[in-house]
């Protein structure tokens, strides 16, 4: 193309010259005049290329090569810029990868957007309710907007055959569950409706992993038998690998076969329900229908359903739970880091653009258009941006797994967190966008006017606009760093406050574990009671064990049992009944946990069946129900308990059941302790499958875990321990989220501080260098080294203080956000500002000190000679 263009113009010039010669011109004059008439072959060529429109591609490669060349010339600059950007975009990419996997990707079910979960809702306690089993059937038969509905609840038990005795987690599911989710078993079949009924033959679907390790993945597994809780089940299906119903479980059995007494109870809301919307039905339509059914049920069963509504949410929301705000918060924080990185690179580039003013002016003089120069500068910044982005993707690849594994608890959908095209697209857009962001300001400075000034001045003196732009960059960096530092400070203080909170019991040296009794004794309450006595007795004899107790729920561990209560003979309206957490414990629980007794006595060994039923309450309940008067000796009515009222014999201090951070915000905080020995037989049967043992030790609690496991294997060798945890770990885990965020924000704030310091240092060094002649002149006129230092520091501090002022406003907003999103945070705490801002000032002072000192050592004579 280029050659042809050249040839075409040469032909024109030759023809023209020939003609002029023919008219009598001398050959050299003719050549010259022909050129003049054409108007400069290079300009014409330039315009022809423009006219062809292929220009930008050629330009791009040219600019690209030029950019690589200039970057190679200044490797230090390139490395700092690329690393800065890589950190920023790497952190952002990690966050986006997680958000993509957890929040954006659809769940791995066919047409997952039509799956919904249903919850009961009351005005007083919100949406934390399940369904009762009869209620599930009511909705199943009444709903038209939901194509199919399925129910499940937690199950599990000891599997004794085939293989070793082992406790496995299970789910009791209605026959429609697999088809509602749209995921068929990989082998065999799901349950039939006729199997989902009392008295049907016991059948089970087992998990892929149980199939692999107990049946060796054999095809003949279907139709074989499995002993769960002493009962033989026929395996009819194998669930796909990774199949989850609120976490993975190993065994699925038909819910309808359950003999749990709660199955008939309209007030036992222990069933979880999910459904699939009919095609073309919106969530809002389903919601309306649910409300209609709820009102009808409230009229039909006023006792249990009064004031009870129903709400539907997308299943994805339920699966993801409450991580959305945390993730978005972190994305916000990393975006700030990225922004600081961009500003930093922008100020570096700007400094370079100013010192390259002469080069750019030269280009303009040689005929480069302004647009062309801007494009060249942007190409250069895109090269930086994309290299930084590519390195950032590598960092993200490395960083994503530590991030997911350090996530407090387990990150929902962690298996979906992977780098995919969406992430790559995001990373690429982020780096291109940021290169536009940091490249634009320097690029727009490309000279268009004052060419002569540019050529002569050679970037020695600075225009006011450049200096202002530099100051704005420093201010922006400082302001962003303040936001991150103060947020980290707020989280740090929150952690300090939370970890110094009194949990209400002594977390040290306590071990808690679920005990699955031998299935042989579970069916018979008397045998179960005896087995529990045996468990306590054996555990107590172990060396290192001080005291032992049973409890159905353990503070700060997942799981709770709440009941309605009232303190007057006439119960309040059903939706007004206050709730309390009830703990079914044995008398030594007070000693094991180290709970403080405030009044009266705790439960004791004399509180047994046949004696008066007694309870112990916590000071919260006493405050609510008895408004400060002595509760000991008063009566209490507990919903669903067979013998009401019961007598209060003591009051203990409140235990932070919901964790150190969460307890203050939780809705159900009143507590009741009820003796395991006073449970009626049906409840013994039911609770025996959920009881835990709690042990106070005189040695490291985990060291008694193995002896305990061995000692408690029971006469049949089929009694198992699971969920073995120390109370210290549970307490620590309850503020894991805050600790995790503190760490991340600490890292982000540290990065921000570092980048801001590099930025301040770079800008001041640069500005000072530009002012060397001026400073030399000042010194020649009698300014002392001190004066010069003051001049430079004063300039630096002006920018920094404005940045801090802006940053404080941002930090106040960020604090409000944190307070809103993270339990236990108190944002409006001036001391945080008082600690964090001096840190920033000190760092900023240090960063500006070096250039200031250098300026003060300028030799006036040589400085002036440079001019």
């Amino acid at each position: 193309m280029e050659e042809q263009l050249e040839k075409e113009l040469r032909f024109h010039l030759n023809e023209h010259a020939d003609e002029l010669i023919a008219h009598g011109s001398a050959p050299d004059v003719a050549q010259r005049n022909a050129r003049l008439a054409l108007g400069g072959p290079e300009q014409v060529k330039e315009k022809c290329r423009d006219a062809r429109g292929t220009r930008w591609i050629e330009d791009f490669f040219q600019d690209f090569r030029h950019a690589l060349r200039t970057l190679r010339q200044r490797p230090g600059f390139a490395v700092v810029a690329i690393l800065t950007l890589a950190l920023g975009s790497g952190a952002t990419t990690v966050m986006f990868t997680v958000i993509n996997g957890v929040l954006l990707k659809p769940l791995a079910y066919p047409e997952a957007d039509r799956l919904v979960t249903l919850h009961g809702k009351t005005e007083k306690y919100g949406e934390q309710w399940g369904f009762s089993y009869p209620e599930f059937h009511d909705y199943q038969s009444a709903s038209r907007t939901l194509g199919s509905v399925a129910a499940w609840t937690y199950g599990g038990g000891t599997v004794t055959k085939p293989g070793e005795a082992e406790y496995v987690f299970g789910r009791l599911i209605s026959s429609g569950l697999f088809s509602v989710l749209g995921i068929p078993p990989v082998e065999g079949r799901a349950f039939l409706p006729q199997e989902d009924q009392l008295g049907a033959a016991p059948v089970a679907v087992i998990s892929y992993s149980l199939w692999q390790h107990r049946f060796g993945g054999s095809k003949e597994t279907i139709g074989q038998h499995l002993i769960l809780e002493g009962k033989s089940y026929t395996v009819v299906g194998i669930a796909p690998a990774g199949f989850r119903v609120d976490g993975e479980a190993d065994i699925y059995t038909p819910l309808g076969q359950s003999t749990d007494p709660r199955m008939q109870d309209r007030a036992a809301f222990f069933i979880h329900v999910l459904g699939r919307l009919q095609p073309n039905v919106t969530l809002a339509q389903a919601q309306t229908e649910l409300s209609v059914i709820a009102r009808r049920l409230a009229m039909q069963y006023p006792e249990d359903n009064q004031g009870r509504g129903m709400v539907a949410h997308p299943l994805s929301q339920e699966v993801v739970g409450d991580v959305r705000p945390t993730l978005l918060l972190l994305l916000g924080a990393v975006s700030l880091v990225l922004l600081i990185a961009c500003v930093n690179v922008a100020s570096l580039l700007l400094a370079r653009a100013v010192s390259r003013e002469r080069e750019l002016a030269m280009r303009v003089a040689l005929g480069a258009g302004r647009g062309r120069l801007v494009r060249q500068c942007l190409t250069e910044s895109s090269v930086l941006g994309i290299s930084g982005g590519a390195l950032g993707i590598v960092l993200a690849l490395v960083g994503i797994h530590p991030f997911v594994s350090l996530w407090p608890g387990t990150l929902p959908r962690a298996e979906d967190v992977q780098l995919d095209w969406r992430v790559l697209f995001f990373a690429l857009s982020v780096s291109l966008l940021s290169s536009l962001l940091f490249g634009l300001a320097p690029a727009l400075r490309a000279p268009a006017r004052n060419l002569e000034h540019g050529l002569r001045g050679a970037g020695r003196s600075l225009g006011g606009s450049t200096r202002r732009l530099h100051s704005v960059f420093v201010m922006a960096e400082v302001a962003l760093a303040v936001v991150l530092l103060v947020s980290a400070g707020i989280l740090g203080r929150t952690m300090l406050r939370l970890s110094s909170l009194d949990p209400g019991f002594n977390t040290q040296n306590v071990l808690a574990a679920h005990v699955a009794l031998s299935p042989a004794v579970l069916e018979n309450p008397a045998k179960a009671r005896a087995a529990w006595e045996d468990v306590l007795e054996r555990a107590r004899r172990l060396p290192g064990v001080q005291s032992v107790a049973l409890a159905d729920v353990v503070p700060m561990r997942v799981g709770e049992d709440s009941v309605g209560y009232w303190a007057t003979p006439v119960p309040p309206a059903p939706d007004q009944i206050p709730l309390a957490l009830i703990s079914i414990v044995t008398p030594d629980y007070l000693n094991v946990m180290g709970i403080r007794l405030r009044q009266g006595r705790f439960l004791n060994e004399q509180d047994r069946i046949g004696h008066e039923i007694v309870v112990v309450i916590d000071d919260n309940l006493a405050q609510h129900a008895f408004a400060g008067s002595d509760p000991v000796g008063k009566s209490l009515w507990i919903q669903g308990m067979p013998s009401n009222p019961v007598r209060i014999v003591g009051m203990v201090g409140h235990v932070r059941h919901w964790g150190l951070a969460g307890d203050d915000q939780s809705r159900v905080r009143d507590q009741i302790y009820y003796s395991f020995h006073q449970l009626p037989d049906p409840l013994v049967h039911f609770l025996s499958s959920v009881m835990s043992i709690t042990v106070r030790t005189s040695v490291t609690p985990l060291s008694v875990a193995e002896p305990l496991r061995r000692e408690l294997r029971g006469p049949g060798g089929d009694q198992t321990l699971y969920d073995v945890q120390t109370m210290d770990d549970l307490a620590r885990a309850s503020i894991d989220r805050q600790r995790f965020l503190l760490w991340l924000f600490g890292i982000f704030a540290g990065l921000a501080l570092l980048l801001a310091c590099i930025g301040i240092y770079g800008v001041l060094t640069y500005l000072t260098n530009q002012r060397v002649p001026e400073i030399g002149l000042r010194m020649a006129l009698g300014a002392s080294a001190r004066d010069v230092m003051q001049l430079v520091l004063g300039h630096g501090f002006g920018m920094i203080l404005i940045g801090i002022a802006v940053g404080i406003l941002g930090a106040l907003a960020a604090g409000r956000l944190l307070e809103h999103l993270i339990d236990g945070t108190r944002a409006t705490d001036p001391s945080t500002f008082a600690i964090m801002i001096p840190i920033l000032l000190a760092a900023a002072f240090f960063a500006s000190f070096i250039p200031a000192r250098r300026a003060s050592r300028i030799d006036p004579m040589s400085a002036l000679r440079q001019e």
Partner: protein
Amino acid sequence: MVAPKTDLPQGTLDLLILKVVALSPVHGYAIAQRLEQVSRGVVQVPEGSLYPALHRLENRNLLAADWKETATGREAKFYRLTRKGQKQLETEAASWQRLIDAIALILGMANGGAR
């Protein structure tokens, strides 16, 4: 005495080039000369903008080009009109004609009014 030359109105260069090329395939220098002759030296065609215009028209597929030898034995790039170029020439010429008629009408009206 040479008559003062008028600048070419915006957008007419393309039209003139198309018209010249429509007669027969022709190279750039000849186009410049032809334009100069045809407009009898009244219209100044800056030679510098001729070639960008040719390349623009070629790029828009209104012109096509082949390399051929000239009578003087030099190789030159000969432009010819494409079918699309032919259409473009017709519509543009027609619209110019309408414009010229309209302007003539307005100018004639002004004269008539004064009479």
